[in-house]
């Protein structure tokens, strides 16, 4: 019954068809305005992150320039009150944010996959226990938990924060993966794999996971966005090594040196725009993936008024 009730999002198609499916997927992904825009923004920041030392004109930490400069030709984003170049800080922060964001996003997706797929495929008591743990992490307030952990792990680096974020933020993905694995577990091709003697672990890795690739991709985007925002929030509150270079730390320094009340907009606008742009690129790509997996959301007009007009005529 179950397989009928749930919309068949992914039909299991085998080998050669699979290639075409992914090609179609890619074609849609790059021709869709939203995801293409998102991908371009993402690519720009990825390049900035990779080539940060080449792009940044100065050292991000050297406090040797004129302090409190508004943007000038030499200092595009001005300088801090201790004379650090803000543009260089911005560029190097992109690198940390991308590493922490994607690292935590991918790690939490993997944890979510383990919990979700095992729970959904196994069912029974395993499912009950794993689902309980998942629901528990889902309802515990994320940032509050992170802050409390930070109270005991003092002045952690961005990377440690990324790890903590991944270990506390995987639950939403696990929930989505579980329900998808549950519907897949009842399909014929899984039964066939079982009868051919494949072990459960192999079935989960080679049969179930490949059939929910788009959900996994979507979850990586979603989890990365969450990790970037959480890391920025923690750094802004001052719960990250304040000498590290990240957009959140820049905002921490801006606000603790009351850049707001001195009108130094060049200090706190760029880091926020950076976070928002990277976040936006992820949301845009995620939106396109949503439209692919759920065709009803795609642009075509609702079967507009057909019913009504037919009834009236």
């Amino acid at each position, binding site marked *: 019954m179950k397989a009928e009730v749930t919309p068949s999002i992914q039909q299991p198609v085998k080998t050669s068809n699979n290639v075409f499916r992914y090609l179609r997927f890619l074609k849609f992904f790059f021709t869709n305005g939203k995801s293409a825009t998102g991908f371009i923004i993402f690519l720009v920041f990825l390049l900035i992150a990779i080539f940060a030392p080449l792009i940044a004109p100065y050292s991000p930490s050297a406090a040797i320039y004129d302090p409190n400069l508004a943007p000038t030709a030499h200092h595009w984003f001005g300088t801090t009150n201790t004379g650090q170049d803000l543009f260089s800080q911005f560029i190097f922060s992109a690198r940390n944010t991308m590493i922490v964001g994607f690292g935590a996003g991918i790690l939490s997706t993997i944890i979510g996959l383990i919990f979700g797929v095992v729970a959904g495929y196994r069912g029974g008591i395993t499912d009950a226990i794993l689902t309980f743990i998942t629901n528990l992490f889902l309802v515990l*307030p994320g940032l509050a938990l992170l802050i409390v952990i930070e109270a005991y792990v003092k002045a952690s680096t961005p990377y440690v924060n990324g790890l903590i974020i991944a270990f506390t933020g995987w639950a939403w993905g696990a929930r989505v993966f579980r329900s998808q694995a549950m519907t897949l577990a009842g399909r014929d091709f899984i039964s066939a794999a079982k009868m051919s003697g494949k072990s459960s672990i192999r079935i989960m890795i080679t049969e179930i996971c490949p059939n929910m690739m788009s959900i996994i991709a979507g979850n990586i985007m979603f989890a990365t966005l969450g990790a970037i925002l959480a890391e920025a*929030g923690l750094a802004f509150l001052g719960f990250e090594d304040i000498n590290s270079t990240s957009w959140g730390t820049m905002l921490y320094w801006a606000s603790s040196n009351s850049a707001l009340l001195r009108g130094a907009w060049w200090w*706190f606008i760029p*880091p926020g725009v950076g976070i928002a742009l990277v976040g936006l690129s992820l949301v845009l790509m995620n939106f396109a993936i949503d439209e692919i997996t759920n065709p009803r959301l795609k642009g075509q007009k609702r079967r507009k008024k057909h019913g009504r007009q037919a009834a009236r005529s």
Partner: protein
Amino acid sequence: MRYVINRFGFFVLSLWAAITINFILPRLMPGNPADAMFAKFQGQLTPAAIDAMKKAYGIGQSNLWQQYMDYLHGLFTFNWGLSFMQYPTPVSDIIKSSVPWTLGLVGISTLISVFLGTTLGVYISWKRKGLLDNTLPIVSMIFQAMPYFWMALLFVFIFGFKLEWFPLSHGYDPSLTPGWNGSFLYSMLSHAFLPGLTLLLGSLSGWIVGMRNNMINTLGEDYVTFAEAKGVRTSRLMFSYAARNAILPQLTSFAIAIGNVVSGSILTEQVFSYPGIGNQLTSAVTSQDFPMIQASFLLIAISVLVANLIVDLLYSRLDPRIRTGGLSHEG
């Protein structure tokens, strides 16, 4: 009924887990944070006071189980210890004075956000490809990608600093004495406006897009098409036929939404120095005030758990399939 018992069971278990995390975390960390704390206080407090604090904190007793029992006992008798930073104010007093601020701010902005977002979602799902349907999801995506606290900073800068429309920080004008009079209420509202707006805008997009997507799925159902063919009025079709069913998945996403709002409120309160519980938590962590940290985290966790429980129970009222067990395996 089984569902209700189930939800209560989960509530009790998760409550226990939150309490236990709170107990274990400080004891799990390398080095005893409390010892470092006491070292810091050595000069400021009398030895007798430190002894009393140590006893209250179970330091020096080796039996972990005994500590746990004492901790639980203290918790349920509202004996939450004394704040390190504002010694000897009981933690429960500080909590009591800050909870109403957060509850008012988060509660009201969340209610407005859910109502407004759901209504807008219904509206744009009906006007597919209209101006709003094309722009609103994009605008909402930008809001989704923006950090709450950065939006709060922008509001402080634009509306507080540049335009001077609203006060920059705090919950009310400190020159006024709190009370139920006009000038105090006005001061309270004008101070709450910007933080409230931040929370509202930050969470609104999720509700709009979620409702829009649910509506589009529901509008594709046969019973809606049939009703349309019968000539049911548009407004009736949207609200009585489609929205009623589309609103159910909205409720299940409440769990993640409330977590986001609470996280957002911690950051927003920090930006506005709003006298709420989130602000207490961050300042307690900064000053290593462990009893305060434990109490405020526990309170935040409990309120989120209670909110979830209420939504779960509401869900069973709204969806009869849940009560009869037809959907017992979903979610």
